[in-house]
């Protein structure tokens, strides 16, 4: 078991966004969290990755209690995340975006006097290639097309060589075609490297095509969990997604 989430609770000004969520993710699993808007998916991600302090509960990653650790330490333990909204370094080039993450991961960030330019060229190129951005390396990342920025976001996350990926709506705002390509790409990377993947997604066909297990979040609580078929036939899930029958 790589990730263990125990009874997480978070409220904002009395509104309970996450109301006691517990689940586990096995090493190498591809797992998704679905749920209507406002179900608490992003809040849950923010809590696991140290972006939001927990009101209650515990998060164990690879046997280490990360509940109270700051985000940068969690990242260094091998839990990488991407964001729903584009979250890159807009005025840096595509290459520099990735390179910054690579050099941090390789423990070079506190080097004050080496020239940064020639560092980790190969490693950075490799990641650019992996996310299909090798043709854009000198472009200023903020002026890239939306889909490319999303890919860059993924690239930055991969550059930290995480063991487990938490992707928050990796295809948000993409066309159907882009979505399919991106999901294929993610699936390939995850399987090649033997990573563990936990992601949220609004496109149900994507979710059911790639997930080995699906968690359903509704009003801050997990209401179902299981393989795609189990979730598809679960009456509670049908009620939320299809309206009351």
């Amino acid at each position, binding site marked *: 078991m790589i990730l263990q989430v125990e009874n997480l609770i978070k409220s904002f000004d009395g509104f309970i966004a996450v109301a006691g969520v517990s689940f586990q993710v096995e090493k190498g699993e591809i797992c998704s969290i679905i749920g209507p808007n406002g179900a608490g998916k992003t809040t849950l991600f923010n809590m696991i*990755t140290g*972006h939001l302090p927990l009101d209650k509960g515990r998060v164990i990653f690879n046997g280490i209690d990360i509940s109270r650790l*700051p*985000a*940068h*330490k969690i*990242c*260094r333990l091998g839990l*990488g*995340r991407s*964001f729903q909204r584009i*979250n*890159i*370094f*807009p*005025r*840096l080039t595509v290459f*520099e975006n990735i*390179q*910054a*993450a690579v*050099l*941090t*991961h390789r423990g*070079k*960030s*506190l*080097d*004050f*006097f*080496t*020239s*940064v*330019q020639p*560092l980790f060229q190969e490693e950075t190129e490799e990641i650019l290639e992996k996310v299909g951005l090798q043709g854009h390396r000198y472009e200023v990342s903020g002026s890239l097309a939306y889909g490319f920025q999303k890919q860059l976001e993924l690239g*930055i*996350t991969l*550059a*930290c060589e995480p063991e487990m990926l938490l992707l928050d709506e990796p295809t948000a705002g993409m066309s159907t075609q882009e979505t399919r390509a991106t999901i294929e790409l993610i699936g390939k990377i995850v399987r090649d490297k033997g990573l563990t993947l936990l992601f949220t997604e609004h496109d149900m066909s994507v979710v059911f095509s790639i997930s080995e297990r699906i968690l359903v979040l509704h009003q801050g609580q997990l209401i179902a969990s299981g393989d795609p078929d189990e979730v598809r036939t679960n009456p509670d899930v049908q009620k939320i997604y299809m309206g009351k029958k």
Partner: protein
Amino acid sequence: MSRQNWILITILVLVGLIPLTGSRYYVFLFTDILIFGLFALSLNLLLGYTGLVSFGQAAYFGIGCYTCALLIKKAGIVFGFAFPIAGIFGAAAALVIGFFCVRLTKIYFAMLTLAFSQVVWAIIFKWNALTGGDTGIYGIDFPNFMDSKVKFFYFTLIVVSLSTFILRKIINSPFGRILTTIRENPERTEFIGINVKLFQLLAFIISGFFSAISGALFAVFNHSIFPDFCYWPISAEVLIMTLLGGMYSFFGPMVGAAVLLYLRLEVTSYTQYWPFILGTIMVLLLFFFPGGIVGFIQDQIKRLMPSK
């Protein structure tokens, strides 16, 4: 060596030839420009590279001034040692003040740096026994081996060049790259595994160190120092220099310092309405040249040579 380095060395040599003109005016002006240029460069490590608006940089400049002056006048420390010690005092003050400031962001960060700098000013202003209070400290003389304005000009040129070299090295290092990612997106930087507050604090300390070095130079250059040197208008002035020259280019702040100091010297010899002219320049700058002088020139070059 790259083309840029050749240009820099050429400029350095040209500046080094200035005393040959025999003009006391230019020696004075360029010493002033070098000192404030370094001050503006040190501020820009925070402003342009880390994305932190420090509105209290005069504190470290002032601490540099007073440390250097007091060491020379009261402690009898050798001139050469007073400079690095002044820098270390500036860095130490920045460590303490920065520790609190980096906990806040944006306007709150700016206001806290201002508040702390006013505290530093108040201490210097009121601590009569040590600092001479309102009267300041007089008679900070050149040491024997450096008994002329020209010699001090060369001393300043060496100290500023060396400091600039180190700052540029830092900017182009992995640490410098991470500072720019913090400027661009502190949240994302945290999620590539960087302790953002620690890096901001380190930048603050380095900036404080070089601000204090420029303050120390200024104390000797001016021969006397006053609490005014760490009062908030100095913070505003160095901020204006940085914006005027262009905060997204390394040498922009130096250019800003040169233009501002030259204009001030020229304009004040014709009219007493310098603040009015400065205000007009700022308005035009913010509306039409948000990238500052160097940013504007770079844009023009890019337009004329699109392939570059």
